[in-house]
């Protein structure tokens, strides 16, 4: 019945007289806020007809911690720890992007070494974040083993971070003007060691999960987002690229010296396509029945991006220059009366900060544009007319972090 009705023409199910007889009573299903498949305190109210979802309304705000109001009461360097707690799986990226926004506003210069260290940290954190996305998506789809593999490698990245700044989740390491402390002795060697160990593992993840028959069945052609929809809804990051839009701020509007690094931006493909991987690593061929913009593509973006992030870390380590790690930052820095909006490529998409100064040390307004917030807003549009069991597959592939949605 499913093939006949839904896969060919989704609308016919709701229109034709024949199907009217098959329709059952509508039911509201409350998914969350503590449902394990919703990755935190996301609550989705599903209006269902049997196994089909007619409407999916996300209710957010369970983790609202007034981050923007707090930003109006703290100096920028004091606000950095608050950015950690937005996207807590990619805290370095948040620190970095907020710091750049403040630097643009206050006109601070960042030394070359600090910029390179920031790139290393941001890309390592992107790896750690994508590993969590990969592992937990496997969990959502009923595969437990990939989760353990992903966390084994993530643990090593967290050890590296612990070595640098003492923290394992909320780093506050990157600060306006540079970074807090220099790399410790032995960090560079350990980081190289980690990369040598890590790069071959990515092919292992593909064998383990990406090409798993059950996994493909659960994710291929599920929750398809067209490129036009993705752009109109303001989706960014792997979700946008999974829809076939090759757009990455590190390339399109480079910041932090990203234009000096060689890397490619993988993009969603349909069955048979070959995703862009660095030379010398096994091809990632898109399996049967996958279409551009489906859950499998969004998932695969993260796996393939790991290659390129690891490559950027290696390049940054190679050219690490000696020098200062923090530029001149006045003790009681007055922010000029101006506003700056800066967006950078975080792990989940484009994280933006709008900082308004008014001549005092404390900004008049700090607005955070969380990528998860925008990515989640398309959920209702995608989930309509899909099967109830596909909802976790779609939510998981969007990879939201509620700390960032609710701020």
């Amino acid at each position, binding site marked *: 019945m499913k093939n006949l009705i839904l896969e060919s023409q989704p609308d016919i199910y709701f229109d034709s007289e024949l199907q009217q007889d098959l329709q059952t009573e509508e039911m509201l299903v409350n998914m969350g806020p503590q449902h394990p498949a919703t990755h935190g305190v996301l609550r989705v109210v599903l209006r269902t007809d049997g196994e089909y979802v007619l409407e999916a309304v996300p209710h957010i705000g369970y983790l*609202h911690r007034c981050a923007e109001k707090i930003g109006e009461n703290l100096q920028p360097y004091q606000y950095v720890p608050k950015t950690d707690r937005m996207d807590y799986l990619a805290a370095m990226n948040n620190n970095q992007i907020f710091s750049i926004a403040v630097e643009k506003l206050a006109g601070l210069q960042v030394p070359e070494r600090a910029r390179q260290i920031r790139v290393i940290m941001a890309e390592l954190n992107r790896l750690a974040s994508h590993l969590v996305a990969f592992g937990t998506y496997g969990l959502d789809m009923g595969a437990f083993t990939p989760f353990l593999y992903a966390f084994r490698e993530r643990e090593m990245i967290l050890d590296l971070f612990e070595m640098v700044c003492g923290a394992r989740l909320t780093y506050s390491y990157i600060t306006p003007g540079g970074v807090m402390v220099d790399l410790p002795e032995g960090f560079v060697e350990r980081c190289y060691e980690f990369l040598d160990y890590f790069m071959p593992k990515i092919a292992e993840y593909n064998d383990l999960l990406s090409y798993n028959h059950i996994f493909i069945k659960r994710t291929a052609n599920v929750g398809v987002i067209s490129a036009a929809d993705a752009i109109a809804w303001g989706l960014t990051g792997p979700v946008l690229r999974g829809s076939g839009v090759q757009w990455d701020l590190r390339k399109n509007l480079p910041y932090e010296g990203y234009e000096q690094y060689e890397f490619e931006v993988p993009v969603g493909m349909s069955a048979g396509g070959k995703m862009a991987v660095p030379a010398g690593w096994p091809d990632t061929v898109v399996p049967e029945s996958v279409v551009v913009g489906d859950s499998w593509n969004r998932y695969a973006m993260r796996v393939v991006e790991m290659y390129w992030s690891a490559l950027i870390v290696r390049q940054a380590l190679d050219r690490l220059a000696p020098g200062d790690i923090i530029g001149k930052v006045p003790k009681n820095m007055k922010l000029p009366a101006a506003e700056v909006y800066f967006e950078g490529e975080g792990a989940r998409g484009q994280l933006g900060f709008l900082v308004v100064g008014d001549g005092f040390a404390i900004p008049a307004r700090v607005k955070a544009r969380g990528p998860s917030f925008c990515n989640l807003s398309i959920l209702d549009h995608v989930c309509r007319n899909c099967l109830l069991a596909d909802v976790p597959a779609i939510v998981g592939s969007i990879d939201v972090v509620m700390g960032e949605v609710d701020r």
Partner: protein
Amino acid sequence: MSPEAICNLLKKRFGEAIVATAADTPHPCAVVRAVDWLVVARFLRDDPQLRFNMLRCITALDLVADNKLAAVYDLVAMHDKWAAGNREQGRASEQTGSVADDGGGLDYACLHIFAVRIEVERANPHIPSVAAVWPAADWHEREAYDLMGIRFDQHPDEVSDHDGTHPRRILCPDDWEGYPLRKDYLYPLEYHGIPGTTEYELTSPKH
């Protein structure tokens, strides 16, 4: 197009609907009159020269000095270099050097970036909703209403109260009172039996 060219184009096309422009600031923007915003928004999206297809962010601001509220719309024009379907051909011609590469080797390039600012009276903060132009505006407008109390008219997800209609709240509970990001917001001392804080002098600790 440069921000200056965009400002001039808008001024030429819409005249007095464009209240002011600021092209050479770190955040180039045009100030648009609230009543004309929907028309200007459609123009920004559909004009073949501009093509602002993505709304990145809506920021609500409280301009206490002017007794106004403002909404800042950050836009970006993402331009598909090979207009779908022509991708393979395009890549081939790029290798031979016949196409100018302006996107770091990617299929999409950034055409231009711009922002629009709309200022409304604090007593009567009404701005037309642009959720029909950019669906991304839906949640951003709900957030701007929730935290700053700007009423977006004709929002797809609206509820009514004694003052008319407004977008549904998104982060705070539906029965929350006041708009937390306004500078004159008074912290509630009680919410459904949960006591609020009274320990601090709750004004802005600035100056």
